[in-house]
């Protein structure tokens, strides 16, 4: 009754009076008014929340029961069965040769696999708790704003530092990022607890990259390191091509190294590539400049040119076999490429496209009887 009146008399101005006013008309003027009436929207939300909570409780109970059944079937103690045992049992009971591992049957706690219910926090008037709630991605935009503030602070601090002409070089340093990379989109989603698009992810890292590039960004290294993870070699099984070696960290120098064993014709080479180097070569005690042939030098440098890492890694190689000025550089080239792919996973694809990752299977063809070589024939002569 009162609602249309207020609408028409004050237009939009008193739209929000609606709830209060209708409460008055229901309870009669003069009776104590309940200002804390929960809105319909909030009621619906609370109902959904309750339904979801009861559904999850049911699923959890089902999972526990199923776990006990599985333990009995497999002859494991139901009290000690863990997720690893469950995975093995499922693999045994439901053998699947589906290529994609995500398509294979799983049995995991419902909290891990069921879609998460978006839990918003409202107060008793239905006001969302997050100040950026209406952006629909409050946590993502809060992070963007935080980066913005930090960028502003870093540049302000550096400007002050330049103005005062201070000698300490902390405010000139950029944050050190060696050996780490930005966390990927999936991990970012998990970290924020929000679904973000690839475009938003790119936006985020444009902002991060700018912050990182500023002189003096070292003061924010703790914040930045939350969004970086150590570089790891591609240990996932590969279907084609040689295995990428594992990255090891040298306990003395704290440098990351990768060692690959390769073969070219009858030459076997063990090549160790270390990052954070100065571009040193050690091939059976020889440096690159001991190879007089320009072709050999080009072959040695090839993977570094492709990966754009000249002067940033050290290579140490030992060879066994009959190889000379051609086979030794080729073997070292292959080993270097594999080492680089292990240390810097983002250049692996580049190296693969340049044909440096795959093994060259060609070998010396055997000589044939009654012939001077593999294919060559004696000159035919009529008697």
């Amino acid at each position, binding site marked *: 009754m009162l609602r249309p009146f207020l609408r028409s*008399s004050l237009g939009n101005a008193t739209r929000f009076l609606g709830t209060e006013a209708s409460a008055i008309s229901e309870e009669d003027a003069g009776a104590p008014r309940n200002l804390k009436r929960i809105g319909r929207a909030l009621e619906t939300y609370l109902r959904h929340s309750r339904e979801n909570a009861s559904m999850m409780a049911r699923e959890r109970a089902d999972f526990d029961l199923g776990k006990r059944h599985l333990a009995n079937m497999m002859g494991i103690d139901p009290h000690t069965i863990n997720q690893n045992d469950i995975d093995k049992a499922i693999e045994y009971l439901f053998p699947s040769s589906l290529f994609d591992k995500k398509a294979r049957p799983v049995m995991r706690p419902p909290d891990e696999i069921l879609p998460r219910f978006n839990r918003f926090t409202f107060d008793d008037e239905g006001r969302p708790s997050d100040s*950026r709630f209406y952006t629909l991605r409050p946590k993502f935009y809060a992070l963007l*704003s935080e980066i913005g503030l930090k960028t502003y602070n870093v540049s302000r601090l550096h400007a002050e530092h330049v103005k005062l002409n201070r000698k300490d070089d902390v405010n000139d340093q950029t944050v050190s990022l060696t050996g780490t990379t930005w966390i990927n989109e999936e991990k970012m989603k998990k970290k924020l607890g929000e679904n973000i698009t690839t475009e938003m992810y790119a936006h985020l890292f444009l902002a991060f990259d700018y912050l990182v590039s500023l002189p003096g960004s070292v003061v924010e290294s703790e914040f930045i390191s939350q969004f970086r993870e150590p570089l790891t070699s591609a240990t996932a099984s590969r279907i084609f091509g040689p295995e990428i070696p594992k990255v090891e960290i040298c306990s003395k120098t704290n440098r990351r190294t990768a060692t690959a064993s390769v073969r070219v014709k009858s030459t076997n080479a063990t090549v160790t590539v270390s990052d954070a180097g100065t571009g040193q070569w050690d091939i059976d005690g020889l440096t690159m400049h001991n190879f007089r042939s320009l072709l050999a030098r080009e072959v040695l440098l090839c993977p570094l040119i492709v990966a754009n890492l000249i002067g940033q890694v050290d290579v140490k190689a030992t060879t066994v076999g009959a190889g000379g000025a051609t086979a030794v550089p080729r073997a070292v080239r292959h080993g270097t490429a594999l080492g680089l792919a292990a240390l810097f996973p983002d250049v692996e694809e580049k190296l693969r496209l340049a044909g440096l990752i795959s093994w060259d299977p060609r070998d010396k063809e055997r000589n044939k009887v009654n012939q001077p070589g593999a294919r060559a024939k004696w000159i035919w002569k009529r008697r």
Partner: protein
Amino acid sequence: MRRVFTSPAFPSHRSLFLSRQKATTSASNTLQQHQQSTSSIPAPSIHRDIKVPSISALEKASTQSTSLKPYVSEELQADDYFNLESLVNVKEMFDARLHLGHKIGTLNDNMKWALYGERLGICIFDLDVTKKFIVRALNFVAHVAARGGIILFVTTNRESMLNVEKTAKELGEYSHCRRWQEGTLTNSAQLVGATIRLPDTIIFLSTLTSLNEPHPAIIEAAKLTIPTVGVVDSNTDPAYLTYLIPANDDTPQSAEYLLRLFKEAITRGKAYRKKQQQLEF
């Protein structure tokens, strides 16, 4: 059809609040003095006499909204219930560069009424007009805050963005300074995954996007009859906005000044609400 509020002289429902107060403009006052004067706000009445209009009165009001004036509560009829006019003075507005518009060539016809003139090819706002409109908008915002309304600050200006977000957070209100997803208001249930309470008023500190097009939230708010307060520059279209503030929206100084005013108005509204709740319970 676009409904455009072009002339301040045109009696819309907004003029209900402001028709009486005209000549009571005090000279330059500082913000500290006004904060003392908040105590002069009349104590809120516990039992308000609410008269309910008859059906015939409502029917009449559909063509003449002013006929409902006797049914509107006294505090809403007051022109400046929260004594906000003393916050605003022309000197401070001038220092905050509120008078600077855009180049003449970009002038929107619907913004001519707010201009004082032109200097060096730049539109100059009439700050007396601006002041009147600021007080009007502040009074409205304070009343919304006094009734527990959700206030959403919107801006597209990158320089003042962080400031706006900070202010909204401090006030316990809301901000949206990023890309506007289509249907944020009109399709909120689908996008959020639950029915939510929408903002009760939206304050636009700039109404143009980076492409010089009206902010998409203006149309969405109009569709849902959410009242809006908009800072409109000389090159913007004031259509679909409820409360206009003709002023410069591009400099951080002007945004900061306006934010300070909104902050004070909302704080007063909330203080009033607190006092009222204490009296009622």
